[in-house]
């Protein structure tokens, strides 16, 4: 090897080391900056984003969706609550995605599972879902989600039933949903509907982490359902309200108290419903219950 | 100038001249109309350039008149002589061409009143310094570029005519073949487009042997040296055995061996009666091949001479010893704009 080659090699090694060393730091810096803002695209007006995507609307929407999911995933991974501003960001991003590709189903699901359940932004989510219903005329799920929101969160039985009837009219509506109205009156409360809803969501979710996320919530709802049934039975048999969930075990209505996967404590409310101090939300400083 | 028997004359006349000089208003104008010109088809004879041959009643000469519809565009008079034993294959009459800069609209004259004719079987060379307008003239002849004024005919037709091209083998200046294709691909394309009948593969083999590229038949052109490309392009030009060879700097970029090969090929073609028009600035090669030599400078034809005439050329004493007569003539024209010495010994003139 002659001198010139050696020199070139030396410079090459030096330069490579230099850039390789900066990679973790650069990622760190960019990570911090990204944490401040969900996406640069948020600031672009939806119409402009749509026109600017040219003929690549599909993959642009996919990319933005991936960004939204990464954002949520990071927050969930860090057990961090989103600030009101961050929720607004997420909502705006979802609006953007759905204006680029209005028939894309994933952003609507994210709106339903996150905006409604976590942030209580039901009106915003409903607006998105109505948009979904317009652009996915073959699909029962937008109306199904709308119906669920009415029943479960608004306690609006009439409105919910109207949406569910619309959902039942779609060709791809599963049979169990068609008889849901009847089953609703049978179970008589929203917890059962929530369980059905989550089961349905999990069935059509492919991604492992999302499934785990939903499964945890499903487990909590099942626990509540068991507890509520026991409370109702307790009341029917002993003609009085149990003072706490431990009464249910003492009196032999339950073998054991099912745990709250979110780590909260069960409270029996005046109307016989069960409340949990975790509010079914991962708290920043609370160790998440191990779920597998 | 050399006035042997059977010499032909060409006059360029404009429409205005025709109108003011009714004796020239002959029906022959109509008869000799360029048949393929679109305006002729539309029945507008007066708008069409025409070439006519008029026998001179007083001797056995013929005059070629080129009629051009543009008034005042052209000069008048005798411009060149040609061997009248055969029809001119190529004629340039009063051809002018200027290039305009895209932005500044500044005009640069490339050709001015270029007039000459090449008869069948002749080897005609054009020499001149770079930028003399040689290539431009050949491009106008091939129909790539359009003359602003004047008339060009090839085989009795306007330039750029597909049927005219059937008889031409053209070698462009700095030949650019398709880099990624092989010479065989090019020759196959030539076979498809020239109506070549007969087996293609033996013809390709024959040509490759002729230009000494038999071993490179499957190599893409980008691997070729400049000389090899030049020879490949020559094979491409020769594929359909054309009657007329138009060669733009055929010897440039070749080593002495390749040069000898190309000169031999051109000479062979000439010996078989092909017409050859080529331009070059390698004077010795021009001398070796040509029957007649035209010297151009700054877009104008300065002189047409023959090797025979050059033998008698008086070389100026200030030129270094060993200068050939053609070199001397060329240098004087290029330096002074016209020959300082008449290319004939004083005793033989006129």
């Amino acid at each position, binding site marked *: 090897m002659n001198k010139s080659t050696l020199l070139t090699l030396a410079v090459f090694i030096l330069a490579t080391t230099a850039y390789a060393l900066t990679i973790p730091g650069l990622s760190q810096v960019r990570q911090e900056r990204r944490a401040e803002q969900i996406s640069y695209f948020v600031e672009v007006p939806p119409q402009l984003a749509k026109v600017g995507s040219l003929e690549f609307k599909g993959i642009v929407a996919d990319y933005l969706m991936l960004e939204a999911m990464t954002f949520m995933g990071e927050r969930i991974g860090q057990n961090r609550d989103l600030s009101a501003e961050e929720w607004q960001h997420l909502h705006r991003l979802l609006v953007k995605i759905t204006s680029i590709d209005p028939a894309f189903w994933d952003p609507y699901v994210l709106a339903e599972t996150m905006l409604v359940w976590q942030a209580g932004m039901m009106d915003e989510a409903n607006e998105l879902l109505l948009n979904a219903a317009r652009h996915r005329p073959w699909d029962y799920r937008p109306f199904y989600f709308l119906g669920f929101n009415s029943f479960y969160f608004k306690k609006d039985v009439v409105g919910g039933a109207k949406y569910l009837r619309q959902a039942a009219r779609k060709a791809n509506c599963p049979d169990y949903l068609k008889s849901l109205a009847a089953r609703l009156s049978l179970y008589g409360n929203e917890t059962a509907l929530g369980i059905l809803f989550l089961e349905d969501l999990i069935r059509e979710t492919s991604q492992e982490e999302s499934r785990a996320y939903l499964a945890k919530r499903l487990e909590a709802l099942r626990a509540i359902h068991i507890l509520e049934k026991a409370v109702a039975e307790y009341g029917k048999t002993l003609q009085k309200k149990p003072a706490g969930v431990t009464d249910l075990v003492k009196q032999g209505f339950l073998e054991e108290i099912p745990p709250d996967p979110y780590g909260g404590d069960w409270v029996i409310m005046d109307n016989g419903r069960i409340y949990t101090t975790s509010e079914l939300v991962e708290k920043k400083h609370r160790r998440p219950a191990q779920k597998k | 100038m050399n006035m042997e028997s059977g010499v032909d004359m060409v006059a360029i006349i404009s429409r205005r001249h025709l109108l003011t000089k009714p004796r020239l208003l002959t029906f022959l104008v109509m008869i000799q109309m360029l048949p393929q010109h679109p305006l002729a088809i539309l029945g507008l004879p007066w708008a069409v350039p025409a070439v006519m041959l008029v026998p001179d009643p007083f001797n056995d000469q013929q005059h070629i008149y080129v009629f051009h519809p543009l008034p005042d565009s052209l000069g008048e008079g005798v411009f060149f002589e040609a061997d009248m034993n055969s029809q001119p294959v190529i004629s340039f009459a009063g051809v002018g061409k200027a290039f305009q800069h895209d932005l500044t609209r500044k005009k640069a004259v490339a050709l001015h009143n270029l007039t000459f004719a090449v008869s069948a079987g002749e080897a005609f060379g054009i020499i001149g310094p770079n930028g003399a307008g040689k290539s431009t003239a050949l491009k106008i002849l091939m129909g790539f570029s359009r003359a602003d004024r004047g008339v060009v005919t090839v085989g009795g037709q306007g330039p750029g005519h597909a049927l005219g091209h059937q008889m031409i083998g053209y070698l462009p200046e700095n030949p650019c073949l398709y880099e*990624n294709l092989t010479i065989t691909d090019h020759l196959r394309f030539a076979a498809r487009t020239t109506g070549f009948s007969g087996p293609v593969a033996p013809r390709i083999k024959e040509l490759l042997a002729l230009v000494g590229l038999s071993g490179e038949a499957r190599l893409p052109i980008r691997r070729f040296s400049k000389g090899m490309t030049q020879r490949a392009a020559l094979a491409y030009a020769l594929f359909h055995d054309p009657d007329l060879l138009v060669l733009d700097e055929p010897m440039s970029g070749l080593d002495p061996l390749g040069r000898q090969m190309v000169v031999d090929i051109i000479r062979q073609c000439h010996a078989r009666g092909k017409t050859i028009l080529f331009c070059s600035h390698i004077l010795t090669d021009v001398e070796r091949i040509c029957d007649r030599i035209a010297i151009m400078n700054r877009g104008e034809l300065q002189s047409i001479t023959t090797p025979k005439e050059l033998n008698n050329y008086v070389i100026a004493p200030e030129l270094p010893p060993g200068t050939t007569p053609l070199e001397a003539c060329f240098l004087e024209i290029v330096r002074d704009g016209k020959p300082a010495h008449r290319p004939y010994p004083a005793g033989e003139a006129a």
Partner: protein
Amino acid sequence: MKKTLAVAIISFQEGLRQRVLYGILIFALFMMSAAVLLSGLFMRDIAKITIDFCLAAISIGGLLVPFFLAVNQLARDIERRTIFTLLCRAISRRQYILGKFSGLALLTVTIVAILSLSAALAIWTSNVIYGDYFFQNLNIQALAVAVGMSLLGVLMFTAVVVLWSCITTSSFLVTLLAIATYLIGHTTEDLVRFMASPPPGVEISPMVQHSVTAALYIFPNLAAFDLKLAAAHGLMISGGEILFLLTYGIGYTVAALCLAIFFFQRRDLT
């Protein structure tokens, strides 16, 4: 006709020898794996994501032809004077333009065919990995129509680039014009729609309105040939729309080529 075909063949060969197809094959492989792997990151619309990637890749592959090969084969052909090699044979300028366009069209069809095959493979793989549940809306017919229309759109765009190559003198300018045409072609329709019903408080001057309408008539409406989103959601367009698109696309292509021939016949090649 025979000569046009000869030009088409030599252009096609030249395109092939530029190793375009190797690049396309590598690109196809990359696209396939990206489509299959990335769609797994999503929760529900897995078929849609896979198809999005595949169709976008087909479009990009097709667009290589007008953006790179057409510029290379026409503008640079003239710039580098390789065109003389063709024109000095008994080939008219019309035959040259038609032959070049046919050669480019042949290249486009080849590229789109290769990418479509690999897309089919990618969709099938994705289906096998993630299961039938996510591929209920798969509509092969809609996909075929989307690919066909994408091809027609690219051919139309190629014809416009051929026209630009015949008018301007530098390949760089042709590339710029091609990009401008592409952007205009994909946005005018949206602009027209926006102006038809402007949001309250927005005043649109008649001048702007007229020029946008003029652009809609002059430039190719490439957006209309983008049926990727609909196809990804398994939606089929109506027969009437297909008929409109075919008429528009073929009409525009032929008109652009006629104009290209008109200008090219009058052009000085130096």
